[in-house]
């Protein structure tokens, strides 16, 4: 047992971190704030070249053939860098929805979904096609549809619709999508879709379950990246900002807020890593429980640290220019994507 990052995992994280710093610096991302260019295919294919989408696709299918642990390490860096776009859905689609084109629609014998239509995955691992995902909203009491919010609609090649019964694919072009003028996260463009068609069913409940489980872990990894990013920001500011003649980080009131941020981030990171390793190494624990718990703690850590980061920055933290709010709003987007915190807690309780 060695629960520290291996040299390969550490190198992978470093590589992604340099790529993000060089190719997607925050000021460049912010220049596209609120616009349509948040997800550009050129940038997307650079992420693909670094292996972001093909990490878990088997080598025989042209992927890198690594597991969840490697993906978790990579996704933490992507989260920390606030990379926009449906990273989770595209990554999951590349290994969960790649498979032969015939056979039953719910038989993930080797963990992958069979019977996926031709072309769905072609180009996803290479970054040529952007895959999005949305949870099918429950119908309201009167049977009317509740609108779905689809992320990055204008960039999508395929939209995966996930519900309790399974997964379906929808051609984004067929949707009547209305742009949300002011999305909560300025770096996540959203479209409102009032009527989500049934689409073409590609997988059943077991596959949808696996999608949600893996999404909780990797969404958790993105959220840990946010929690760590805001911790670094807050600590850097607390060291440099002076009041009463000394750095505010020398006051215990501020110090303890920063310490609590570290505890939240480290605990959530341990949970996410344990969940990822538990999926890779069956037999070391209950993967479903670990995944739900990891998503839950990562979600809370990112939201709490985002909030505290604003507080540590004082009045500046409430300004648009200081990016603290971007981490907090992204945390909300991801928290929603991996499922409501209450549902994750209920799932852990059920499996405990």
């Amino acid at each position: 047992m060695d629960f520290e990052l291996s040299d390969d995992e550490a190198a992978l994280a470093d590589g992604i971190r340099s790529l993000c710093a060089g190719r997607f610096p925050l000021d460049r991302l912010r220049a596209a704030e609120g616009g349509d260019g948040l997800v550009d295919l050129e940038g997307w294919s650079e992420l693909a070249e670094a292996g972001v989408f093909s990490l878990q696709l088997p080598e025989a299918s042209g992927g890198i053939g690594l597991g969840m642990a490697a993906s978790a390490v990579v996704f933490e860096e992507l989260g920390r860098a606030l990379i926009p776009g449906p990273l989770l859905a595209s990554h999951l689609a590349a290994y969960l929805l790649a498979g032969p084109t015939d056979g039953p629609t719910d038989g993930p014998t080797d963990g992958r979904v069979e019977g996926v239509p031709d072309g769905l995955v072609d180009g996803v691992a290479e970054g040529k096609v952007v895959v999005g995902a949305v949870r099918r909203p429950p119908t309201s009491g009167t049977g009317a549809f509740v609108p779905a919010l689809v992320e990055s609609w204008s960039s999508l090649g395929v939209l995966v619709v996930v519900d309790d019964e399974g997964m379906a694919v929808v051609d984004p072009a067929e949707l009547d999508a209305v742009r949300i003028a002011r999305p909560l996260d300025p770096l996540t463009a959203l479209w409102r879709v009032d009527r989500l068609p049934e689409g073409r069913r590609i997988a059943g409940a077991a596959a949808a379950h696996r999608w949600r489980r893996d999404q909780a872990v990797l969404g958790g990894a993105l959220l840990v990246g946010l929690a760590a990013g805001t911790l670094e920001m807050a600590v850097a500011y607390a060291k440099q900002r002076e009041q009463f003649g000394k750095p505010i980080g020398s006051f215990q009131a501020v110090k303890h807020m920063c310490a609590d941020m570290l505890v939240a981030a480290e605990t959530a990171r341990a949970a996410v890593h344990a969940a990822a390793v538990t999926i890779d190494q069956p037999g070391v624990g209950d993967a479903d429980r670990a995944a739900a718990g990891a998503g839950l703690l990562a979600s809370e850590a990112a939201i709490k640290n985002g909030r505290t980061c604003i507080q540590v920055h004082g009045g500046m933290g409430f300004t648009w220019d200081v990016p603290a709010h971007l981490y907090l709003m992204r945390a909300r987007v991801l928290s929603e994507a991996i499922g409501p915190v209450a549902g994750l807690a209920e799932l852990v309780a059920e499996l405990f």
Partner: protein
Amino acid sequence: MDLRYSETEESFRLELRKWLVEVVPTLGPKASSLDWPARRVYDTTWQRMLFDAGYAGIDWPVEGGGRAASPVEQLIYLEELERAHAPYVGVNFVGLLHAGPTIVVEGTPEQRARFLPPILRGDEVWCQGFSEPGAGSDLASLRTKAVRDGDEYVVTGQKIWTSHAEVADYCELLVRTGDEGSRHRGITWLAMPMDQPGIDFRPLKTIAGSTEFGELFLDGVRVPVANRMGEENDGWRVTMVTLSFERGTAFVSEVLQSMEFLRDLRTTAERTGAWADGDVRRRLGHLAAELDALWALARRNVSQAARTGVPGVGGSVYKLGLSEIRQRIGEFGMDLIGGAGLSWDDLQGGDGRGSIGNTELVNTWVHGFSRTIAAGTSQIQRNIIAERILGLPKG
């Protein structure tokens, strides 16, 4: 990252498990928590059994009488003892987890030979004399004075929060040997025999109504210079070795105990019907997720210790998280039983199948308040995290 155990580790686990299955059922009933002499007998009898089977101080180096078990083997050891419901380390805590490891690192060959084997065999029990009424979180301000007189120190002062002093043979004692203002630079570590004249122990009653610790009054107590660990005035550094051990692996068992307690709370909630309430389920699910994460963190700390050889500052993160969650678990238990929580007297008992009675729930809740105070308050842990890990300036 790898959470699988190697074949060697697994065979260590199986060998230990086999032994535990044989011996644990042969143990007599636990001693009453208020009867310290009986607790000493119970705990030291168990320690002797561990010793005879080769499981005493497994992490200690071979020359100290241990088997130089790796941090991963220590983790397995604690996991299996917990799983088998083996006795807790009890009155051997200070000897095995504080004084012993300090002597292993800092003692002379003579001191190791004198002090270590009796600890491992359960023949000698240690207590701790660190805190003072005026030196709590600010331990370096301690004032208990030791004056050199030939081959002896003459010690006068007062210690507090000393556990099981009435049944201890030795006390790991921090004394002031330097000037009044010398702080960290004027402290010395002594092994004080508890049978000396001039020692008076007065128990303190806790908010749980129990006597778990007390005040130690020292008036001209003579301690041989040969019992000094490290150099005179170098006791602070010697102590830091001990404290880093305490924040390293000393609390690993507690997360496993807490998981079992939470599982029993679930059974209790099912029995009382509270489980039908979604809020109750979600609250338990949240606590469970946090315990799972702390267990992951414990394994991370152990992996780090295995790589670097010393327990890291990650211990503070773990200690802080664990202390706080234990309080919240206690709170949850109280909320589950409503009015029955107003009585220490047994009203509803456990059902013997995992359901917990009101006495234990009240006891767990009340004891929870000591968690965020003992072994470094949560506020001190936050200072350590902020200053040593995050590099924030001292105030």
